[in-house]
């Protein structure tokens, strides 16, 4: 029993063997803990260090690289709190601030898709709540194995139902995200959840425990055995081959209670408004271990916790399990003694259980007692900081061969019949098909402020009903591009999210990220991670916007095969007047269609190569961030002046897919005449491009604005009719287009 293993016992029995390896610690790390404490750790301390020093909590392998993301002065103008806090906070004007963050819940979602995905939403919402903000929306970036694979039929519906169950009940609109398929994610799906919250500037809360004598209050759900070791054993290790490990890891997945989370959200917001909290921390990975060490490490002194006072769901839990439990829907607050009664009163109103479990002390030590014995006595910073590894990097041995084998040799469709067939093949592929099967399970209306939601390019929320201020959000990632070139691929993901936000008429102002990679112990994976972070840092520097926070998820692989490096980039924008939102569908009849940007021959890593030839090779497109900035500025200006009937970015599948989507979304056809090689014009994936339809009568004005902003603009056609017509090559009736586009997901998932 870990409870009998007190500090005194540990000091007296230095030779007692301890299960550090089973808890995910290396021999060196175990020795380091012994050195720091001057004795062997108690069982409870070992548990605490094992979760705090896990890859998931400590970022020990990625930290040396993430330093690159620290915003420069030029980038941080709008930043109120940055990396290091639970989530970065950005000034959006009019006294409002916004905080947003993406987090992975990949491994739990593979083991138990419904609960894994549900608690992923819950965790990121508490992160945002802990900053002092009201959570106002969520998004999800999802990646699965091949759509037709047997296991995808288990994982995908479960993940979607989990997100639907938790987010809808919590009353948060789900306004966008991604859905992609690739064999590399078959044994390791990616489930990344984003939450955004809004507050007034002076509502910002900090995760520190200051003021000796202040009380430490645990509130929300009771602590149970669920999720013990989730951070160390589940999130920070690799899944073995087929089947192995799944059953053993199942108890590590937590179970969500969205109604309790809703009560917790309202309770916290009322506590904040009453001004009776000194510090606040959400309980996520590593539960009480993490909350107590981070609160005390961030504060001025130490903390004493009486573990006997933690309300339990299972009375057989010992101190180590209490510390490691990842039971959901819990928060920890630091409260001045004089405010404890008022704190309890607010919690009682919301039927939230609250218990004082400890006190802030001035001795610089985190101590915990259980049944009369001291089971933890550590300097909290040693657990909170964790080790830092500068792991070896190696450029993947196969990279040159991969890049040399571009898709140039494949047969290209030349005539109308072949081009027509290519477009239908792309639109009917799982990656590009209609996502309604998924998104219809999410409530995007709740809270009544959703102006745009999927399948629009970016989600757009109204923040102020009177001033019409709003925010836009988009997430993007492209594992195929990043496999070919993680530096450029990450910049392409950044470019696309930036462009998607811009299409709504918003100005992009901040970036968050979720870095999904394989094992950091593989030097080739570490090289991919380092390159991706360098790409993101350089990209954000060029765009002049800060990275406000993020999350790193490693060990995403099956056996020794890593996933494609998949950084998912989230961009936040400010919309000055949401009434000027721009939809992606063709909303006006007889509107001129203008193609913006320059089309090069970009087929490396393209949807065409993937769908038509199951091929991955060559070079991804070259990002052009300056061009993205010019394009974004043009759209924002034109939207504010009311020139645009629609705007849609070009990405996977190029112009052809974008035209089809604008037709389907607006329920209106178009006639387009191409210049140059039809295949390249239709399917190339050059970045920094968009199609807009111009409000009739404003064409000259838009042309002049394009020229002023130095954005190449070509009028290519007109909206209207019941066909997508690429003159003189082919014309597809919208009804046929819609059938092809809508059929795939329901056919696969029922």
């Amino acid at each position, binding site marked *: 029993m870990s409870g009998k293993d007190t500090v005194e016992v540990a000091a007296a029995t230095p030779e007692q063997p301890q299960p550090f390896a089973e808890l995910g610690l290396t021999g060196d790390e175990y020795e380091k803990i012994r050195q720091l404490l001057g004795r062997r750790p108690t069982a409870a301390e070992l548990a605490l260090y094992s979760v705090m020093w896990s890859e998931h909590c400590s970022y020990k392998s990625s930290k040396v690289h993430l330093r690159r993301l620290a915003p420069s002065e030029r980038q941080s103008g709008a930043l109120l709190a940055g990396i290091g806090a639970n989530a970065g906070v950005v000034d959006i004007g009019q006294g409002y601030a916004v905080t947003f963050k993406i987090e992975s819940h990949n491994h739990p979602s593979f083991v138990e898709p419904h609960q894994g995905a549900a608690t992923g939403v819950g965790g990121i919402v508490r992160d945002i709540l802990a900053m002092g903000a009201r959570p106002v929306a969520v998004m999800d970036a999802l990646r699965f194995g091949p759509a037709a694979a047997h296991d995808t039929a288990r994982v995908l519906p479960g993940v979607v139902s989990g997100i*639907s*169950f938790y987010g809808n*009940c919590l*009353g948060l609109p789900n306004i966008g995200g991604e859905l992609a398929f690739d064999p590399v994610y078959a044994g390791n799906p990616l489930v990344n959840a984003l939450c955004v919250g809004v507050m007034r500037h002076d509502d910002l809360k900090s995760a520190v425990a200051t003021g000796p004598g202040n009380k430490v209050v645990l509130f929300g759900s009771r602590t149970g055995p669920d999720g013990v070791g989730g951070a160390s054993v589940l999130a920070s290790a690799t899944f073995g081959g087929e089947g192995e490990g799944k059953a053993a890891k199942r108890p590590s997945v937590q179970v969500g209670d969205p109604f*309790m989370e*809703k009560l917790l959200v309202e309770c916290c917001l009322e506590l904040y408004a009453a001004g009776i909290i000194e510090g606040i921390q959400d309980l996520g990975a590593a539960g009480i271990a993490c909350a107590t060490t981070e609160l005390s490490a961030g504060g001025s002194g130490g903390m004493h916790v009486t573990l006997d006072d933690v309300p339990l769901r299972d009375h057989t839990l010992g101190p180590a399990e209490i510390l490691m439990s990842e039971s959901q829907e819990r928060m920890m607050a630091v409260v001045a003694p004089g405010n404890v009664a008022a704190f309890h009163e607010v919690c009682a109103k919301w039927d939230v259980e609250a218990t004082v479990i400890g006190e802030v002390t001035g001795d610089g030590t985190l101590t915990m007692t259980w049944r009369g014995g001291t089971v933890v006595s550590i300097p909290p910073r040693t657990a909170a900081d964790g080790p830092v590894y500068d792991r070896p990097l190696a450029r993947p041995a196969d990279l040159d061969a991969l890049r040399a084998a571009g898709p140039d040799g494949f047969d290209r469709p030349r005539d109308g019949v072949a081009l027509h067939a290519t477009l239908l093949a792309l639109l009917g592929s799982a990656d590009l098909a209609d996502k309604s099967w998924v998104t*219809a399970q999410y409530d995007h209306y*709740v809270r009544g*402020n959703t102006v745009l939601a999927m399948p629009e390019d970016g989600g757009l929320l109204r923040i102020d009903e009177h001033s019409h201020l709003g925010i836009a959000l988009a997430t993007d990632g492209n594992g195929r591009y990043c496999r070919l070139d993680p530096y450029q691929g990450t910049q392409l993901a950044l470019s696309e999210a930036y462009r998607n936000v811009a299409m709504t008429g918003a100005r992009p102002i901040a970036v968050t990220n979720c870095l999904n990679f394989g094992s950091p112990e593989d030097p080739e994976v570490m090289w991919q991670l380092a390159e991706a972070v360098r790409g993101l840092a350089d990209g954000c520097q060029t765009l002049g916007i800060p990275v406000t926070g993020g999350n790193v998820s490693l060990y995403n692989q099956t056996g020794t095969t890593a996933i494609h490096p998949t950084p998912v980039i989230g961009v936040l924008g400010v919309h000055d007047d949401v009434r000027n939102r721009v939809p992606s569908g063709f909303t006006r009849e007889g509107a001129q269609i203008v193609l913006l940007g320059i089309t090069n021959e970009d087929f490396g890593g393209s949807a065409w190569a993937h769908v038509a030839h199951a091929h991955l090779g060559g070079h991804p497109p070259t990002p052009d961030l300056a061009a993205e900035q010019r394009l974004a500025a043009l759209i924002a200006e034109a939207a504010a002046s009311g020139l645009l009937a629609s705007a849609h970015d070009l990405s996977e599948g190029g112009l052809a897919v974008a035209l089809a989507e604008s037709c389907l979304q607006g329920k209106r056809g178009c006639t387009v005449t191409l210049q140059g090689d039809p295949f390249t014009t239709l399917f190339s994936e050059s970045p920094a491009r968009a199609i807009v339809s111009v409000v009739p009568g404003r064409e000259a004005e838009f042309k002049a604005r394009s020229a002023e902003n130095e954005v190449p603009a070509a009028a290519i056609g007109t909206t209207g009719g019941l066909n997508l017509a690429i003159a003189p090559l082919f014309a597809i009736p919208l009804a046929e287009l819609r059938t092809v586009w809508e059929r795939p997901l329901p056919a696969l998932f029922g």
Partner: protein
Amino acid sequence: MRHAGAEPVPLWHADRDLRGADAVILPGGFSYGDYLRCGAIARFSPVMGELVPAARAGLPLLGICNGFQILCEAHLLPGALTRNAGLRFITRDVRLTVENTRTPWTRGYAGGQELLVPLKSGEGAYAADEATLDELESSGRVVVRYGAAGSGQAAPNGAARGIAGICSEAGNVVGLMPHPEHAIDPLTGPSADGLGFFTSVVEAFAGALR
């Protein structure tokens, strides 16, 4: 209600107090997480102790989505809301036809008027025994139905006879599965068609005052 020109006052589930409201809306949401059965726990909330007798005495009461489920659980309306056909949560803008314009919540609409309003629910399929359904039909208590008038279109959630909303015998209590509050402004909804439910009740009182 504010958009419709009335002053909204929040009612707290644990207070036996209607705060002098002229009309009450039980909104959508997930009362008690929809655990056990939608609305089954909320019907025992202290505020229901005041609301049920007031509704029986004629107070205009509109239950939307989870509110409709609570009204059925509280036996203010007959029948029940069951899992959607297909067993998945559905968010979709649906066409509705107004069939009863005699309730305080629909008096501003024209009979047969078509509305475009979001539906978003997992347990939204209206169900009742045949005799109850026949009774609802013959007494004109089907307030709104899914689909365009006379289209015979099946309800997206499998609701019996395409029923999207019903009313009490006296007509003052209306239960509605779709969400008219999300269709009050084309900026944040598919239309402004839903505003009529709220302006109807406001006008009912304005008329009474004159």
